[in-house]
């Protein structure tokens, strides 16, 4: 191994790591606010990438049906409240977002030839399709059991993940897709050949992190989420609805997942079940951060990316083993260093 190979591997590790950073941040965010260990996070990545690929190939994306079905499920669950509460603002809001909005998406998907719409148009439409899946998922699966123990939430999260992978196979088929790169140019820096898409991945990841930091420190919604993460009951007493916090969190998680999927899909082939493994690596990183600390999770994600890249050079057959074994010393170290206080169940 010489210096140039080490450089190329580092570059590869950092680009992969950047995606794991985003996923690790989403996992930490969801866990701190809602206590859900959010296994289906990876599905947003795969679904966004594959939806974009479907649009590029001029095929009707199956995720439209998913949004329609999700919207109908939410309406069904809200049906009683819709009849009982004589609050027109609430009615318009629920029906608008869960019935009218999916129908508009469906009409757009059916009428427009997305091959002609340009890459940015397709990306915007993909985000419009994937992001609402987050809040819908929270409303349908997690809101009814929001105060259940962490283990119950985890089991439901696993069930949702398994169901979504099955739906993914049905919607997109078994074979993988790649999407067009945003920037089809290469830069030569010494021995390194940096593809434009890698620049995009790093830039967009950084931008998203800055944006999230601003959101949490400056906006009222961001502060509400932080308050919920610090103390759920306290936040509730201050008038922060835990349901709103949950929906908002899963919307952010879906958005982060969708952006990650759109960023990586030109670099690698995405399959209906790719999301799980990417999500799992983000999870390893989040564990390094103790599922609570953002900077540690981000550093962990970069470590996972680099470890993966270097172990694929030295011992490719054991790459996954090496990456996932990392979790054992980390847990050991954390159990020695931190005094874990069991959280009181409500």
């Amino acid at each position: 191994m010489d210096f140039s190979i080490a450089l190329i591997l580092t570059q590869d590790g950092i680009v992969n790591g950047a995606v794991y950073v985003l996923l690790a941040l989403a996992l930490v965010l969801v866990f701190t606010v809602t206590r859900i260990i959010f296994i289906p996070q990876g599905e947003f990545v795969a679904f966004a990438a594959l939806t974009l690929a479907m649009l590029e190939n001029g095929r009707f994306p199956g995720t439209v049906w998913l949004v329609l079905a999700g919207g109908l499920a939410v309406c069904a669950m809200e049906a009683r409240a819709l009849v009982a509460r004589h609050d027109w603002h609430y009615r318009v809001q629920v029906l608008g977002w869960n019935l009218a909005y999916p129908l508009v998406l469906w009409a757009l998907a059916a009428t427009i030839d997305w091959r002609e719409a340009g890459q940015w148009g397709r990306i915007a439409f993909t985000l419009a399709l994937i992001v609402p899946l987050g809040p819908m998922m929270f409303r349908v699966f997690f809101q009814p059991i929001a105060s259940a123990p962490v283990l119950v939430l985890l089991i439901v999260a696993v069930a949702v993940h398994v169901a979504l992978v099955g739906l993914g196979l049905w919607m997109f088929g078994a074979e993988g897709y790649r999407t067009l790169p945003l920037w089809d140019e290469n830069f030569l820096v010494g021995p390194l050949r940096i593809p434009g898409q890698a620049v995009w991945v790093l830039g967009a990841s950084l931008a998203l992190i800055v944006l999230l930091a601003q959101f949490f420190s400056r906006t009222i919604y961001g502060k509400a989420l932080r308050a919920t993460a610090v103390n759920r009951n306290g936040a509730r007493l201050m008038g922060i609805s835990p349901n709103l916090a949950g929906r908002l969190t899963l919307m952010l998680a879906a958005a982060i997942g969708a952006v990650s999927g759109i960023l990586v899909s030109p670099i690698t082939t995405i399959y209906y079940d790719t999301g799980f493994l990417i999500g799992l690596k983000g999870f390893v990183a989040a564990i390094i951060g103790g599922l609570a600390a953002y900077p540690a999770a981000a550093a962990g994600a970069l470590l996972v990316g680099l470890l993966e890249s270097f172990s694929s050079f030295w011992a490719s057959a054991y790459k996954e083993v090496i990456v996932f074994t990392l979790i054992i010393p980390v847990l050991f170290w954390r159990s020695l260093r931190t005094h874990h206080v069991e959280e009181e169940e409500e």
Partner: protein
Amino acid sequence: MERKKRIILGLALALGWTLAQAQVKVGVTVSATGPAASLGIPEKNTVEMLPKEMAGQKIEYIVLDDASDTTTAVNNTRKFITEDKVDLVMGSSITPNALAMIDVVAEAKVPMISFAAGDRVISPVDEKRRWVFKTPQSDKMMTEAIVEHMAANGVKTVGFIGFSDAYGESWYQSFSEAIAAKGLQMVVNERYNRTDTSVTGQVLKIIGAKPDAVLIAGSGTPAALPQKTLKERGYSGKIYQTHGVVNPDFLRVCGRDCEGTFLPSSPVVVAPQLPDGHPAKAAGVEYFQLYESKYGKGSVTQFGSYVWDAGKLLAAALPEALAKAKPGTPEFRAALRDAIEHLKEVPAANGVYSMSPTDHLGLDHRARVMLRIEGGQWKYIP
């Protein structure tokens, strides 16, 4: 009067029963969902195209999906045997499933034709595997085709990158044996995962070892990643893929980076391009056109043709078995097994099948061709 009525009723019931029994029942389990779905879906499509009548007998196909899962495949097989009382079991798509089904069919003495490629499904032919046949070419035949082509084109050193699972490992075994026999040298051996997002590390190591040719042992679209990375990093030697990539999705994902790649394949994929004298041409073209007319241009894969050929074997063996016993009886199932084993020179889409008590695959060198990817198409190289 009452008695007469009863006799008539009894006769009618008996007649109805024999009529119901007179048709040949075939239980088919395929992996139409789960990781092996890209194999199982064309197989399921092909079952729908199989003839509904052979040798004057109605054939009833009962198709179940085993979701690429071994336990489900075994349960499906048990259901075929105990509930549906089938005369023949077909499936499953992948080797682990087929291996697990052997015990079940051998115990019930029902013949089985597998669509799984693994050699262990049929060899060695022992007390249990007596009942099992298969239609896909063995990996060994395909490996030999690759190594022959390498040796003939001046390749001296080779690199290998394969899936880090049983598929990659079994290819590595048969490939390293085959190149040793031809005097080639393996200089680098790497592994990657089906869902990996990057193989830069492995590819850098391969390029560092400077092999004349690289074999990528993957299947379907995941086999495109090493090839794209090799091209991206400027590898200029020959690249070989296995017959596991022969589907239109692989060409779509790999695009320009796959031009000039060599691979072995079943002749059915290029059936219309075969020279007229080729023994697999007639059956191959028949299947090719039928499948394309139903599922669209460029949709033919070899996976579906394994089912088609299982149908050919059944059609060829049926007259001999029917002469000995009635469908639905244990005697018929035993006779059907013997009849399949007696088949000689049956032309089918994948080649010519000649079974024997020691060979339950029965294919020879006529069952494989070498292809080259040109202009995003499979091209037959004579």
